[in-house]
């Protein structure tokens, strides 16, 4: 395959952003995503764009606010503790309705935690780590190729809805190399950024980038507008994969990111033992693919199991989607421990009662 190259997830993020027309990158080093910044520092000057290492994650996200407000495509990247520091800034960006892409290559927490792969920032990403009623669109790629595709999509979705989009992977995805292809992408019709504050240049009225609405009536109206937008996104942007879900199933795994690949291997193992297990793989963590559950709910004997590299965070969204219609189980590892297919298969056998 001549047009495929082996690329580290973190570097693929950078290259995908460049392909998507990312004009500015602001970052701060943190394991396991440092290579994003390193890659951008090499490449962005070569393509005449902006790489800047900020003094902190707080500064980086506010630089993003500045550049996004000026109407250019902009990205920042970090890992868990760094994302926490961006919480205020992300809330501002969501409040001011600015499009941008935020990468989180998750590591184990809480606190300084560890640097190995984890998924324990699910809540933070999907329920809004920052204050106020806002939502990020959250993409969760499972391979370096999908990372490349989703990072590019992320810029489009951000621009389409004037909303920040987070692309979340774990340390594995950031560090691993896989073959990737930068596909020709059809040009998207996207709204013009007439709101951008980039200098009047003859424009009559000044543009203002702002999230302050001192009058409660106005702030409520603004929130209502945001909520409408979120409903629109829920309608249009849900993405997921159904794997092995066509027939009657003993159980359906729900799992995202790299971990979902391990789950697929577990499914293959179980198949050999006569246990048929499906997989719902949410690709958007928000909006959550509730409809995927509706599609399979009548075909699963023992309900669902949320398999996570966290202590039961996505579990709540699974329960909300299932809403009591079937049992919901959980299997999780944490702190950088990556479950093996055998382990997952074992847990599932415990639930479905061994081979048939």
């Amino acid at each position, binding site marked *: 395959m001549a047009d495929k190259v082996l690329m580290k997830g973190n570097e693929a993020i950078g290259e995908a952003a460049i392909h998507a027309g990312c*004009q*500015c990158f*602001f970052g701060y080093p943190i394991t396991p995503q440092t290579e994003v910044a390193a890659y951008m520092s090499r490449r962005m000057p070569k393509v005449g764009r*902006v790489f*800047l290492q*900020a*003094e*902190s994650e*707080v*500064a*980086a996200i*506010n*630089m*993003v*606010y*500045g*550049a*996004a*407000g*000026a*109407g*250019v495509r*902009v990205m920042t990247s970090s890992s868990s503790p760094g994302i926490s520091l961006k919480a*205020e*800034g992300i809330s*501002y960006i969501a409040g*001011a309705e600015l499009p941008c892409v935020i990468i989180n290559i998750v590591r184990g927490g809480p606190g300084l935690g560890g640097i190995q792969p984890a998924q324990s920032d699910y809540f933070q990403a999907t329920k809004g780590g920052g204050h106020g009623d806002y939502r990020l669109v959250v993409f969760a790629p499972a391979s370096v190729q999908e990372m490349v595709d989703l990072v590019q999509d992320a810029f489009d979705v951000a621009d389409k809805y004037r909303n920040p989009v987070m692309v979340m992977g774990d340390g594995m995805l950031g560090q691993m190399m896989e073959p990737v292809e930068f596909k020709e992408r059809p040009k998207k019709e996207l709204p013009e950024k007439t709101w951008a*504050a*980039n*200098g*009047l*240049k*003859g424009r009559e009225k*000044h*543009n*203002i*980038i*702002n*999230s*302050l609405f001192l009058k409660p009536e106005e702030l409520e109206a603004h929130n209502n507008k945001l909520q409408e937008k979120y409903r629109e996104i829920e309608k249009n942007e849900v993405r997921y994969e159904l794997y092995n879900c066509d027939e009657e199933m003993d159980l359906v795994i729900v799992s995202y990111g790299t971990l979902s690949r391990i789950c697929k291997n577990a499914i293959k193992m179980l198949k050999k033992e006569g246990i048929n297990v499906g997989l719902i793989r949410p690709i958007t963590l928000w909006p959550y693919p509730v409809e995927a559950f509706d599609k399979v709910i009548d075909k699963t004997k023992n309900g669902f199991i949320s398999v996570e590299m966290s202590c039961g965070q996505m579990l709540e969204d699974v329960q909300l989607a299932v809403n009591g219609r079937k049992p919901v189980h959980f299997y999780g590892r944490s702190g950088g421990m990556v479950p093996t297919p055998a382990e997952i298969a074992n847990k599932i056998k415990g639930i479905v009662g061994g081979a048939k």
Partner: protein
Amino acid sequence: MTVVFDRPKALLDVPTHYCPGCTHGVIHRLVAEVIDELGILDKTIGVAPVGCSVLAYDYFACDMYEAAHGRAPAVATGIKRAVPDSVVFTYQGDGDLAAIGTAEIVHAAARGEKITTIFVNNAIYGMTGGQMAPTTLPGQVTETSPYGRDVKTAGYPIRVSEMISTLDGAVYVERVSVDSVPNIIKAKKAIKKAFEIQLQGLGFSLVEVLSICPTNWGLSPNESVKWLRDNMIPYYPLGVKKDATTGEVK
């Protein structure tokens, strides 16, 4: 008759929310006059802070941002990098710039970011009702230093201009005051120079403006300008602190 003095165009013709006598208004006007005189309204982008001047975005005629508390220099950096031919200024209070935003202003200066910062030092947090600022004078009574700022526990005021002057990326740093007409004229000159430094692409410029807060100082506007003169200027000496275009560092 010829007009000797009138409202600058870069200042929108709307009433401000500032308290009677608050010199934020004067400083706004000076910035607007400079924008007018330099003819840069079309490419100027301003960044308002969180503080009493949070609504500055409604007052300046150029494109405007409202930045998170203390982060205006980072926001300005993002703007300037995205639109390199723009003229970007931040307008920040002493709580905003010298407390929560310390890292951002130091690094914008160290980077020699081609932006201009108007730093309004009124020795207090005006917006939130008069708490101690990093620039509150020793012994000064505020909402959170009710017994007077005790340097033993609350520390010493920061002389921002002197601190920023130690950074190689800072090209022009001057402290001015708006307590009197002669000082207002000097303040305008400093602001103009700071913008010119940016237009010449030389690096970071900052003008610290000593300003009054009659409301939270509990003084009338005229008492306030006197208090500024008698108390703030001795602690925060006026003048050019650094001018790399002449090699001057004071």
